[in-house]
């Protein structure tokens, strides 16, 4: 794992959370969209929050595709789950929401899961040779011992 790869994983976490939050903020401005007035969906794109949200989600998608090109899906998904925790802290600091003890336990479980996945190998050997880059012998031995 290089520093650049950790940056990509951080990008997935931050931009997906920011994108979702910005979209939610923009949708609050526009109100509910009914199936009978689908033209509302086109007007939504003019909202600056929605535009920013879509830009963030596009950046998230590029980072996600980049990560999937060099790491396993079962590595990338847990390793980038800190977004759930990030949202809770944004709610706590930005909107003065109260975090209940159960939520604190949830936060700790997610953080532990992220640590568990991120500390492991990024790629595991494939039975089929569809993976373009072979994992290092060190990664294989680490996976076997885990």
């Amino acid at each position, binding site marked *: 794992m290089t520093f*650049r*790869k950790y940056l990509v994983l951080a990008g997935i976490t931050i931009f997906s959370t920011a994108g979702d939050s910005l979209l939610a903020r923009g949708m609050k401005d526009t109100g509910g969209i009914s199936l009978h007035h689908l033209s509302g969906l086109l007007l939504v794109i003019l909202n600056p929050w929605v535009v920013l949200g879509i830009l963030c989600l596009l950046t998230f998608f590029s980072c*996600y*595709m*980049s990560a*999937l*090109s*060099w790491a*396993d*899906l*079962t*590595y*990338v*998904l*847990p*390793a980038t*789950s800190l977004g*759930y925790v990030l949202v*809770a802290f944004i709610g706590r600091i930005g909107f003065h929401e109260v975090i*209940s003890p*159960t*939520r604190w*336990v*949830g*936060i*700790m*479980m*997610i*953080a*532990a*899961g*992220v640590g*568990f*996945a991120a*500390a*492991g190998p990024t790629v*595991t*050997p*494939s*039975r*089929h040779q*569809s*993976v*373009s*880059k072979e994992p290092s012998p060190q990664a294989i031995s680490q*996976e*076997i011992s*885990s």
Partner: protein
Amino acid sequence: MREIYAWAAIALIILASTTGDILLAYSMKRVGDVGELWKRSGMLAVIGRALSTPTFALGVMAMGVAFYSLLFGLSWGNLSLVVPASASLTFVANAIAARIFLHERVGRRRWIAALLVAGGVVLMAV
């Protein structure tokens, strides 16, 4: 009745997003390390190679289905049911599907990680 619709939407979200993730992960493994390809041949080569992989477009379509299922699910069920139920079950479904279809070795470490995150997501919504 609305509850059955909500759970049907949750099932569809899990199915579609797992299919999407598997197809996208498979496509990107075919493309190869994006960072190295970018350095060697530039950004257009990366985009061109990803778009010319047929499973990539299918994966994006499956993600679109998952997104719209989420919107419909949210109109039938509560936010506090639909989002955590679909997110946490998708983690587990992805681990199983990645093992079967992508032949990833989901060792003990990754099972624990997936289950911890899935459980944590449920607790966050309580």
